């Protein structure tokens, strides 16, 4: 057990390779023809091209990746985030090839990957779920009936979706009639499966998630909460740990529910359970992501641990030895995702070559970057350049630290959203915790654009 | 050295090697009878037909209509040339696509008129030039083979000298395959084999032995039906005895083959080759 193949790219691949190096493990990076000169290829012990830039021919090409693992005698595979990280067929193929997949079992992935099967499982086991359809909704007629029962507005969600994709909010029956077939078709094209289910749309709900870690021997713990309400088009822009401005009793209940759910589905390795917290204090299971998340650093910061290391240790069969009571968080962490996009131009992607970068530093400042000066942000993959994680003794400190760090950050050659993030941190709504999942789109962006004039 | 076609002799490896190489050298001898020599002796009333009706006339192949005794036949021969001038004209017996196309024309005409076909095979190989490739040398040999495979008239092929690979095989998909005692039939020239196996074309003698390309070898494989003796001093000026033997073999073969209905004839030809499994 000493060679890890990193089946991903960009920032998360770099993240994984760094931890492997720390542990003395050898690394194999795979890259598409587009990423030949990227950071993962430079940092890994060996790197190999597995296909042209189209994801399905490279980063999603199970045959190629397994061939690379075999060729370079990898023992373990870390799938990162996105791509094949929640693909149960990949997990199974790894097992068949004698490779240790760093993640949960294929069966668990199948259960959780189908969002509506996961929902059903939660309902059957008495966990609170967002009001909605029992299973997938077959026809517009059924959809209308369910929507009338749970009340508008409703969300149409793709059963095989994920990462915020395949979701539509409709405010009334007419809109539902218009969008229903469209969402099904989009889901078919994007995920290969057009099944959809309905959920009540909870206005002004907050997205609170819980980090779970379970070993292969039945021990499961939670590693606190994260607030991820700051989203634009269902993509997270800023995350915090722990969730602030929430009644501690409710947070406790959310955390305990999460561990119960993890035990219930027999989860292994790291995962995240996402909840919606309504203004009246009710919380509902939304979905469980059977992989490590992009925003994991904020959890690492307040607990002082390395989640990727923990993942690898779970996969190696190590036993968790620290009981939940002894796991205590300190301080508050905020993560800003810096993307190559132009907020003033409706967040149009701004691909290009990074001419130079000046990065902040100091106590409590962490940068997880997937690119260095001279690297190209290509238009073929996601536009995230780096993550800035700032940790303070309390939330106000963290906010000030983050704001200062953002002002120090400069990237030449592309447009990016650092100034936008800084403006968000300064906003009174944000500072007092009066945010929800539509806050950025409905409240902050109009405010920001006005401020720009 | 003469040998009856039915004798088998126990030989030492050295003798085998020698014999194979001797055969090859004899097959290539300058004064050896060539196609036109045989045509003059075996047939009478010879009318040579020329051209491929497409691109030109390839002198490496001779096509003619003639009488064999009292039977009209089509003759197709590969001519190498006795004089330098003739050799240049005939491209040393290495046909171009035009030559094989001319031969196919002769075959089809023979089929139309129910004339038996007699092929005289003697070539170092099909010509491997740029233009030959451009005009589809591979394709034309493939088509020639296909034409012979289904030809509804008897075909007798005689390897009179060099049976050089595909260029020779093209003319040997026959109802009867005859070899002169000192001819050879090989998938590759001994020199070519030597340069591949030993990286040294002067090891051609050793290669020739390994290739099992003599008439005796081919008889033992069941590929060849008759081997014609060549007496001491056999040359184009001293060929009458062998010609007599050939005449006898052709006569007997024709007598049998012309009696078989065309469909049966073709079926027999197919089975003959399909049964040569070698496995």
């Amino acid at each position, binding site marked *: *057990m*000493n060679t890890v193949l990193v089946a991903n790219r960009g920032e998360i691949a770099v993240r994984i390779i760094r931890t492997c190096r720390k*542990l*003395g493990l050898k690394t194999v990076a795979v890259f598409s*023809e587009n990423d030949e000169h990227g950071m993962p290829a430079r940092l890994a012990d*060996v790197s*190999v*091209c597995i*296909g*042209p830039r189209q994801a399905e021919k490279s980063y999603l*090409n199970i045959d*190629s990746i*397994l*061939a*690379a693992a*075999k*060729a370079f*005698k990898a023992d373990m595979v870390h799938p990162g985030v996105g791509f094949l990280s929640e693909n149960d067929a990949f997990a199974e193929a790894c097992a068949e090839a004698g490779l240790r997949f760093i993640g949960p079992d294929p069966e668990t992935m199948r259960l959780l990957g189908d969002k509506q099967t996961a929902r059903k499982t939660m309902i059957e086991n008495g966990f609170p779920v967002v009001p909605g359809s029992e299973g997938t909704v077959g026809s517009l007629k059924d959809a209308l009936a369910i929507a009338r029962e749970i009340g508008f507005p409703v969300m149409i969600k793709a059963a095989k979706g994920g990462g915020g994709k395949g979701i539509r909010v409709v405010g009334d029956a007419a809109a539902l009639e218009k969008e229903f077939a469209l969402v099904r078709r989009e889901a078919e094209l994007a995920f290969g499966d057009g099944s959809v289910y309905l959920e009540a749309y909870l206005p002004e709900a907050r997205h609170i998630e819980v980090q779970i*870690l379970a*070993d292969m021997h039945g021990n499961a713990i939670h590693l606190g909460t994260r607030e991820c309400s700051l989203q634009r088009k269902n993509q997270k822009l800023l995350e915090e740990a722990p969730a602030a401005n929430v009644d501690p009793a409710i947070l406790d209940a959310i955390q305990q529910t999460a561990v119960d759910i993890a035990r219930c589905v027999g989860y292994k390795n790291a995962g995240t359970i996402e909840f919606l917290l309504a203004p009246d204090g009710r919380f509902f299971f939304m979905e469980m992501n059977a992989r490590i998340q992009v925003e994991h650093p904020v959890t690492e910061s307040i607990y*002082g641990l390395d989640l990727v290391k923990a993942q690898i*240790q779970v996969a190696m069969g*190590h*036993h*968790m*030895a*620290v009981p939940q009571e002894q796991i205590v968080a300190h301080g508050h962490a905020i993560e800003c995702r810096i993307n190559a996009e132009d907020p003033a131009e409706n967040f149009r992607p701004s691909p290009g070559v990074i001419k130079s970068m000046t990065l902040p530093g100091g106590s409590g400042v962490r940068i997880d970057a997937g690119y260095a000066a001279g690297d190209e942000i290509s238009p073929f993959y996601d536009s995230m350049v780096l993550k800035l994680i700032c940790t303070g003794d309390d939330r106000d400190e963290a906010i000030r630290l983050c704001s200062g760090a953002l002002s120090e950050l400069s990237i030449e050659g592309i447009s990016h959203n650092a100034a936008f993030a800084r403006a968000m941190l300064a906003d009174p709504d944000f500072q007092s915790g009066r945010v929800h999942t539509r806050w950025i789109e409905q409240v902050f962006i109009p405010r920001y654009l006005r401020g720009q004039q | 050295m003469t040998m009856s076609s039915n004798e088998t002799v126990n030989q030492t490896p050295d003798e085998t090697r020698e014999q194979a190489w001797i055969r090859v050298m004899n097959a290539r001898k300058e004064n050896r009878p060539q196609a036109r020599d045989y045509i003059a002796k075996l047939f009478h009333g010879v009318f040579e037909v020329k051209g491929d009706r497409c691109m030109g006339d390839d002198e490496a192949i001779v096509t003619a209509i003639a009488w064999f005794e009292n039977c009209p036949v089509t003759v197709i021969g590969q001519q190498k040339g006795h004089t330098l001038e003739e050799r240049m004209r005939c491209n040393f017996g290495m046909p171009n696509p035009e030559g094989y196309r001319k031969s196919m024309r002769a075959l089809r005409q023979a089929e139309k008129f129910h004339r038996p076909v007699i092929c005289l095979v003697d070539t170092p190989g099909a*010509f*491997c*030039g*740029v233009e030959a*490739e451009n005009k*589809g*040398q*591979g*394709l034309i*040999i*493939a088509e020639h*083979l*296909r034409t012979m*495979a289904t030809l509804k008239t008897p075909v007798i092929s005689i390897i009179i000298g060099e*049976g050089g*690979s*595909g260029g020779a*095989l093209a003319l040997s998909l026959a109802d009867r395959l005859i070899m002169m005692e000192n001819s050879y*039939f*090989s*998938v590759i020239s001994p020199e070519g084999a030597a340069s591949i196996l030993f990286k040294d074309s002067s090891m051609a003698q050793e290669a020739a032995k390994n*290739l*099992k*390309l003599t008439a005796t*070898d*081919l008889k033992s*494989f069941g590929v060849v039906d008759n081997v014609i003796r060549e007496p001491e001093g056999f040359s184009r000026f001293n060929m009458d005895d062998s010609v007599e033997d050939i005449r006898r073999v052709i006569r007997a073969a024709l007598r049998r083959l012309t009696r078989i209905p065309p469909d049966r004839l073709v079926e027999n030809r197919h089975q003959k*080759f*399909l*049964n*040569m*499994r070698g*496995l």
Partner: protein
Amino acid sequence: MNLFNEKVTVTSEEADILGEKPEMLRCGGCKREMVADIVHAADSICPYCGALFRQPAYRRIETIVDSGSFIEIERDAESRDPLSFPGYKTKIESERSKSNLQEGVVVGKATIKGLRTAIAVMDSYFMMGSMGTVVGEKIVLITEFATLNRLPLIIFCASGGARMQEGVLSLLQMSRTTIALARHSEQRLLHINVLTHPTTGGVTASFAMQGDITLAEPGALIGFAGPRVIQQTVGDKLPEGFQTAEYLYERGLIDRIVERRDMRDTLAALLALHAGSAADDVRPKTSFKEWYDDVFKRNS
């Protein structure tokens, strides 16, 4: 914080395994070196420049036919070494140990988009795809099978020519395959050839050029004589693009050049076009087993 009982330990010997290099291939187009298994997992196409690598037979079959539909026949056919050619048996053993290929061609039946067909795929990784008695016999057998069962036949050709070690018996396979295919053609059955890189020698001069339809892969070397021999014969430099599929296409020797990613669709379309040409009401004359046994009675 360390959450676990155990520590991650990696001994230094273990950590050195990366020393042994996997099998590499060099792309003829962009000249980069890459891992063979990865290239073949990517359809044997260079991920950098799109140039085609020679594709192993079993992989080719996987990408062309409907998943799980391929049934192989005659997999274990072995040469008798009829010439007792020195070193031949050893060479065969060593070739067989390189991969799961037993000989230079894989034959069997399959469906492509539901349309039944017989298929033969040559593999130039096995002794340069040279045609000897086994390759010839397997092609004859699959052709007879197709004739009996009224199936079209698709042959993927790839060969360095006739197999020297079996002498004139290799040469003879040109005649034998010709005959089998003539009989197949007589039944008004479809024969499609796909010429892949390289298709040369006795294969070009026999079945590879006898199809009803002749397709080719881009850039494939297709010819009768080898380029080196031609070079020696003519003495001049060979013309630009000589003996490539595109060159032959210009000279009327090929019907169409088909990209690897379009091959399955193209073949399916051709099969569908010809599906009406063989009488549908003719059922196979015997069961596969009966035919198989009959063929081998012929030999013993």
